[in-house]
C-alpha cells in the first residue's frame, strides 16, 4: 500500500511511526512540518509543568485537618450527651415502674388491711415510703438486670481503668471507686430495710452515675 499525506494522522495514532510513514516524510515537506509540530507538542508540553513555593498551603491543610477533627470531637461529645440523656431516661423509667407497682399494691392493701394476707399486711403500714413484697420483687429484678448491664460496661472499661494512663483516667478510676463504695453502703442499708423506696431510688441514682462515668471513660478511650 502506498503511503499518502492523508494517511499521516492515522499513522500518528501509534507511538512508533511505521516505516512507510518514515519513508514518506523524507520526501514530503508538508508532512514533515506536521510531524515536527506533533513532536513539538509533546516536547513543549513538558515545559508546562510548573512548580512554585506555597508556604501557606501545608499550614492551611494542617489547620483544616485539625479543625475537622475538633468538629468531629464536638459531634461525638454531643452524641454522648444524647446517649447520657437516654440512659437517664431509662433509669428514670425503672424508678417510675417501681413506683407504679407500689401504688396499686398500696391501694389494694391500705383500706382493708384486715383482709390482706398477713405477710403483706405486716410490711405495708400505709406509708408510701415502703414497698410491698410483690413490688419489691419487681424492683429487685429490675435492679439486678440494671446492675448486670453496668457490670458489662465496667468490664469493657476495665483495661482503660487498669492502665490509668493519664490524670483524667485516674480521676475516673477514683470516682468509680467512690461510687462502688457508695453502692455497697446503700446495698448494705437496703439489706436492713429492703422495703424503703428512698433507698431504692438512691441506689438507682448511684448506678446511673456509675453508668455515666463508665460511658464517658469509654468515649474518651475511643477518641484517643
Amino acid at each position, binding site marked *: 500500500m502506498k503511503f499518502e499525506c492523508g494517511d499521516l*494522522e492515522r499513522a*500518528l*495514532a501509534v507511538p512508533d511511526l511505521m516505516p512507510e510513514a518514515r519513508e514518506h516524510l523524507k520526501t514530503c515537506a508538508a508532512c514533515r512540518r*506536521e510531524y515536527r*509540530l*506533533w513532536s*513539538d*507538542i*509533546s516536547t*513543549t*508540553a*513538558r*515545559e*508546562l*509543568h*510548573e*512548580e*512554585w513555593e*506555597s508556604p501557606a*498551603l*501545608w499550614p*492551611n*491543610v*494542617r489547620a*483544616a*485537618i*485539625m479543625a*475537622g*477533627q475538633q*468538629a*468531629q470531637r464536638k459531634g461525638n461529645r454531643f452524641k454522648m450527651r444524647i446517649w447520657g440523656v437516654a440512659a437517664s431516661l431509662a433509669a428514670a423509667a425503672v424508678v417510675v415502674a417501681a413506683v407504679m407497682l407500689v401504688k396499686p399494691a398500696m391501694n389494694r392493701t391500705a383500706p382493708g388491711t384486715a383482709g390482706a394476707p398477713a405477710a403483706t399486711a405486716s410490711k405495708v403500714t400505709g406509708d408510701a415510703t415502703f414497698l410491698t413484697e410483690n413490688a419489691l420483687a419487681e424492683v429487685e429484678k429490675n435492679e439486678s438486670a440494671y446492675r448486670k448491664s453496668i457490670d458489662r460496661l465496667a468490664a469493657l472499661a476495665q483495661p482503660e481503668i487498669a492502665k490509668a494512663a493519664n490524670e483524667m483516667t485516674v480521676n475516673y478510676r477514683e470516682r468509680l471507686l467512690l461510687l462502688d463504695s457508695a453502692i455497697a453502703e446503700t446495698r448494705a442499708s437496703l439489706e436492713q430495710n429492703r422495703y424503703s423506696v428512698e433507698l431504692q431510688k438512691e441506689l438507682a441514682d448511684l448506678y446511673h452515675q456509675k453508668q455515666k462515668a463508665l460511658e464517658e471513660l469509654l468515649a474518651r478511650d475511643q*477518641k*484517643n
Partner: protein
Amino acid sequence: MVREIGLPIRFATSFSEHPTDAQLVEECKRGNLRAYERLYEQHAPRMKSLALRLLGSRADAEDAVQDAFLKVYRAMAGFDGNSALSTWMYRILINCCYDVLRRQQRAAEAPVTREPAADSKVSLKIALERALARINERPRLVFVMFEVEGLKHSEIAAILQVPEGTSRNWLFEAKRDLKRILTETSR
C-alpha cells in the same frame, strides 16, 4: 464520593525516613499528622501543577489541592489499598478540580484557563497553553497527566477508571485537536 470519617490526630516524632505507601497509609490511619505531611511533600508539587493546568490559576490550584488533602484525610480510614495511594489521591484531586470548575461556571467567572499575555511573537509554549483551553475536557486531562506531568497510561487509566486504550485514544484526540488549533492559529 469519599466517606466523611475523622481520625484522632497524633503527632508522632519517630517516623521511618523512607516509608512505603503501605506504611504511610497505616500511619495516616492511626492519625499520624507527620504521615500526612510526608504525603503532602511527596505529591503536592505535581498535584499543584496538574490542578494549575486544569483550573488556570495558582490560587485555584492551591485551593483544590487543599480540598483534596482534607478529603484524603477524611477518607483515609476507608482506603482499602485496592489501588495505589497516588492513584487514589489524584482521583480525589481531579474531583476537587471539577468541583472548583463547577463553582466557576456557576459564578460565570472569566475564562477557566488563564490567558497568557499577548505577544507579537507567540511562542509555542504560550500557544499550546491557549490551545489546551480549547480542547475537550477528558482529552485535555489525559494530555496534561501524560505529557505535562509524566504519568503512565496505566496510572491515568486507574485514576480515571477507564481502560488503558481509552486513555491512549484520548491522548491522541488531544494531540490531534491541539495540532489542528496550532496549525490554524499559525496561518
